[in-house]
């Protein structure tokens, strides 16, 4: 048993009621949900691995495959939708050459969509590594990606 996993599970008093929160913390730590770690969580909480996998595949927030170093999420809430979020998503798909849920070949970016982050008044909005960028336009979306790439000194 990895100490880190135990620490996370103990944070919630080994209480099954906090399974989703536990998985969130694990994903925050490892960037995705590695299978061997999920098996350890199942053991620690005394629940079956199948239950854990049913939960991880039910909730949209979880990824069972490794994600990129940078996560870029496009909000597709109604307010963002009517203000042009689908076009922003198209632009990012083209810029990064990936579809939502995919990761660039160099593992730098994962593109995700989210059904509303509640910043509707400043939509369309994209979230880059947890940072909100409001009143988004097609050209601004390109610069948000560009500035991260510039910092990394990478292309693609």
């Amino acid at each position: 048993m990895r100490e880190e996993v135990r620490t996370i599970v103990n944070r919630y008093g080994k209480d099954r009621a906090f399974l989703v929160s536990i998985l969130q913390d694990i994903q925050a730590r490892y960037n995705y949900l590695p299978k061997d770690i999920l098996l350890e969580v199942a053991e620690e909480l005394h629940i079956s691995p199948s239950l854990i996998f049913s939960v991880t595949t039910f909730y949209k927030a979880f990824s069972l495959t490794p994600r990129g170093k940078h996560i870029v999420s496009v909000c597709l809430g109604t307010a963002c939708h009517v203000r042009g979020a689908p076009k922003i998503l198209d632009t990012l798909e083209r810029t990064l050459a990936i579809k939502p849920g995919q990761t660039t070949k160099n593992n730098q970016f994962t593109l995700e969509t989210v059904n509303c982050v509640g910043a509707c008044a400043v939509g369309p909005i994209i979230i880059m590594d947890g940072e909100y960028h409001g009143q988004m336009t097609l050209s601004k979306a390109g610069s948000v990606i560009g500035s991260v790439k510039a910092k990394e000194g990478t292309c693609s």
Partner: protein
Amino acid sequence: MKRIAGVKELLALQKQLKQARDPHKQVITICGGTGCRGLGCMQVTEALEAELKKHNLTEKVAVRVTGCPGFCEKGPLLTVHPGSIFYKKVNAGDVSDIILKTVLQGEIIERLLYQDPLTAKTIVNEQEVPFYKKQRRILLNTNDLIDPTKLEDYLAIGGYTALATALFKMTPEDIIREVKQAGLRGRGGGGFPTGTKWEQCQAAHGTEKYLIGNGDEGDPGAFMDRGIMEGNPHGIVEGMIIGAYAVGSHKGYLYVRNEYPLAIKHLGIALESAREAGLLGENILGSGFTFDIKINRGGGAFICGESSALFASIEGRSGEPRDKYIHAVEKGLWDKPTVLNNVETWANIPLIINQGAAWYSSIGTEKSKGTKIFSLVGKINNTGLVEVPMGMKLREIIYDIGGGIPNGRKFKAVQTGGPSGGCIPESLLDLPVDYDALYEAGSMMGSGGMIVMDDRSCMVDVAKYFITFLQEESCGKCVPCREGLLRMGEIFAGICEGRGTEGDIELLESMSAAIIDGALCALGSTAPNPVLSTIRYFRDEYEAHIKDKKCPAGVCKALIQYSIVAEECKKCGACKKVCPSEAIAGEPKQVHTIDPLKCIKCGACFEACQFDAVSIT
């Protein structure tokens, strides 16, 4: 904070904290809500603190980072007290001026003031801005007054007085009677009378009962709950403790969506500080009553806002709802009697206890009492959170508070009630917003999203959007919802891609009827509402898509063409520069043209053109 032993100590502490708030001391409040953070308010806050330090003003001038005051469109928002000098769209570069001119010399900076678009006059005080003037802010007003991470701030404005009153001067029955008389109905959308729910739970068998605050605000386009959770978390906590005492519960959960990290943080701080002060946990205020709350985070599933799916989620399972003939007040979380209320409902409780049912029920309409917070968003000038008395006309909200439609465009519809609601056309704008009037119009109050659409919004696309959204969010347990929405989505894709056929509208209507009848939970049974309401009010748009293969609003990609209007083209080349597919031809100082075969309809040229020369037909 030291533990507060009892009511006497609480009142003394409140008094002391209130007195410490010198009304003459200069305070700069700045919105730290998620919306303003998306516009850079934290950089402004950092700059403010640095500038105050530079001028040795940190003792003299206080900076208070508050929750969302509502006017997100003009964020980052900053107000200088005393005097309530209201500055909008403040950036870090403005900070030096604010300190040197306004703080030190009392001078008003004209360029940062709000300008009324109708009269072109600038307005100094927040209360005079039309966006705020017509609101009745009994809940949101607290957001302006406190730093949500400080229990002291909440206590200084009389926080937890209602709790003391409830615990020491009222019986559980008194509280339930008061809430019933106030006429408070559930703010999550259902509109069930809150007091009745509590009464049923109180009467249910068993000593182990649960209380839940639903902060899983999943409706896209709605962020009222986020505004309260981030801006006034103690209001929710206080309401929940009062509710727990009334129904006899000792354990509660706040279920908050993980997409709201700041709300989770602020609620966590609130719970911890309330516990430390003896306002939560064992023997609250020395009353002998014990109640504690834990935060449960969601996993990005819309369905978990539904009560029985939410219970399943807290029980560590997939969030699948169950049939509603089993009432949560008898068999809810872990099959124990449970009261689940939306966080906005909980935040209303302290107000009712403090000011009484008679005061509360004097606000609103006959059957919908109090105020309601709406998130006014989409194609509207003043986007943000607005709190109005129930019964206000949609027209007043959209035009008087919202300031109408931007860029001289024409209003087309307002969507209320999230994916379960419907689209309301201009002809119905004089409807009062209350639970029953909106339901009769084919929509619903829902949690309070109000998305305004103009003539460039396609109503078929909007209906398709909601069906696609719900199909993705359907838990898959019952066939009508899982398969029905999938098939409806396919029909919509056909209509929007030019493959629509005669009879599609009727097919959508009959499928809607089947889903309404057959779906297990409210997600499915209300899913056809956006479809039926758009067919009801905007049938001509459906027909244009199906018969003429045209999208009148210019949204559905397969049915539109981009072109450049030669007479409008200023030959600047801005469109050509941004075109990712090299579809635009034209040398400098020549009229540009778009090659329809190369055009991928991304909209970049449309956004880049400053002269409205790019047309969509």
